[in-house]
């Protein structure tokens, strides 16, 4: 089960994220749960794979907003970087950044499952 402590350990800026949720712990954790079950990160991978950079930008941008608002920094950081490259439609290997975002999400998902 997710707790604020676990999220802090994970590297989330819990104070900020919780603040946006008017310090309502249950509400914050519910939103984090929603992020965990969201599958857009996989979709981002597919779009990058297909070199559909317009769609990839929109998806990365949306993900960045979601993770940013909940201050889930470890996933937010690689997504920020990807969004900026994708904004310019840079042709590059997005694999390492995507992998990092996915790895961090997996850690987050596992925390919820523990």
């Amino acid at each position, binding site marked *: 089960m997710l707790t604020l402590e676990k999220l802090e350990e994970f590297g989330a800026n819990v104070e900020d994220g919780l*603040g946006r949720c*008017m310090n309502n712990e249950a509400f914050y954790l519910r939103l984090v749960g929603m992020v965990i079950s969201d599958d857009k990160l996989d979709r981002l991978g597919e779009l990058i794979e297909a070199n559909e950079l317009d769609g990839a930008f*929109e998806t990365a941008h*949306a993900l960045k*907003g979601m993770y*940013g608002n909940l201050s889930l920094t470890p996933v937010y950081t690689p997504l920020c970087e990807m969004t900026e490259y994708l904004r310019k439609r840079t042709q590059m290997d997005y694999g390492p950044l995507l992998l990092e975002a996915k790895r961090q999400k997996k850690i987050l998902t596992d925390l919820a499952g523990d």
Partner: protein
Amino acid sequence: MKHIIEEKNKNFRRLVLIVDDEQINRVLLGSIVQKQYDVIFAENGKEAYEAIKEYQQKISLILLDILMPEMNGYSLLEVLKKDPVLRKIPVIVLTSDRSAEVKSLQMGAVDFIPKPYDMPDVIMARIGRSIELAEDRFLINATETDALTGLYVREFFYIHISRYFHSDSNRQMDAIVLNVNKLRIVNELRGREYGDAVLRNIGAKIREIAERSEGIACRSEGDCFFIYAVHRDAACYADWYDEIVAEANKAAGNSKITLKIGVYQNADKNMEIERIFDRALIACNTLVNQYGVKYALYDEEMHNKELYSEKLLGDMDTALEKKQFKIFYQPKYRISGDKPVLCSAEALVRWSHPDLGMVSPGTFIPLFEMNGLIYRLDRYVWEEAAIQVRAWKEAFGVVIPVSVNVSRMDVYESGLENSLMEIVKSNGLKPEDLYLEITESAYTDNSEQIVDVVTGLREKGFVVEMDDFGSGYSSLNMLATLPIDALKLDMRFIRNICTSGVDYRLVKLMIDTAALMSIPTIAEGVETEEQYRLLREVGCDIVQGYYFSKPVPAEEFAELIKKELTA
């Protein structure tokens, strides 16, 4: 004046629209904003635009994301900016991108909230400040009374009602709408000053009536007045009619001014004031083209019709989702050769409603048109028709083009060409496989814009048919100037072609003229052999109608194709 609004606002929660495609962002922002405001949500610009149109008088602020599917934030800002009423609603843009901030402000946004979001207090302060500024601006610009008649303007009329009348539940009140018939024509024939004198007289009489009826009145718009007065017997409204008309005609001289009066008696005070007057307006509109009837009361039948319409409108989303709209195909036959040859089809839509049974398109299409929703149904039909053309192509190896309707409203959509291209492409079709029917009246409404749009569509390869030719005020010389590929004659001419010499000659004239311009003609509503024979005789190219086949489901149509191929 300001104190009236302030007082009204004390106990009233303003409405904020949040537009964001991300559910989490909507939930998060919604929970912050809901502390102080009522909130509605939209997932993209298009949904937001629908909500804004529906709640335009109630929305105090829009929180708008920029990057969204369907219609993004910039496009919505652009649409709002063009609308004189909607552009007054303040918009705060939600963005994480610095360049978007500047662009949004340039496009009319009043502020922005950066992403990740600020702390709730900061967000609320920004929202509060933006609403306050917009309302102050309204007060500075607002005028309480109409300069011409001295009556209230509608906005203040509503405020007065909510303040002085609506809270008194013991008193039964009537809402009355008065519409001056054909004032526009009077203005055109006799000049604006003359029309203004008529309106002034009407306004003065209405004020007198309202005062003695313990009510208030406003000039709602050009030729339309509202009164909210203590309930009375319906017969009194005939007297009001006579009094007002007599006063109007003092100024009108030789012209004879007439009115329509619609009354919603014993208004339900739990309803919003706008809705109360909508009911009076519904009653008023039943008098269109009914001469000699002085007033109409909103009654059970209108109420049921209103409820029925609301049900249909409310059920549209589910109907689209669950494919309750069924497409029928009516075959069109080319008759210029020895024998009729199946050449294309027209897509016609029916609604198989789970509770109401088969709903006639004559009921739901005008309703969707009136409420600005027809584009959604049109798009659905385009997609279904394209899928069907592809299915037949795959099954029989031939393309049977299908005509679909393009409504007036679609023509004003900036993405029309792209949407249609996307639909044909995604089905592996060519533009010429989808025929587009545009009704004649759309051409006469705004011919410049429609010519541009149709020219664009034809350049892409779409075949454009002008529907209902001869039903409106078009003239034959339009054929020389308008970009069209086929002319579809109004059904009424065909109906009488055998019995009326005039209609026969008119049909012949239209077909001859079209032939001169090398425009093929299509006759619909062909029901008898005699009609078919006469149409052949006058050189009509293509026919459709019950004589050949009624509109049939796709599976039955496939049988017709099979039959044609083996003939």
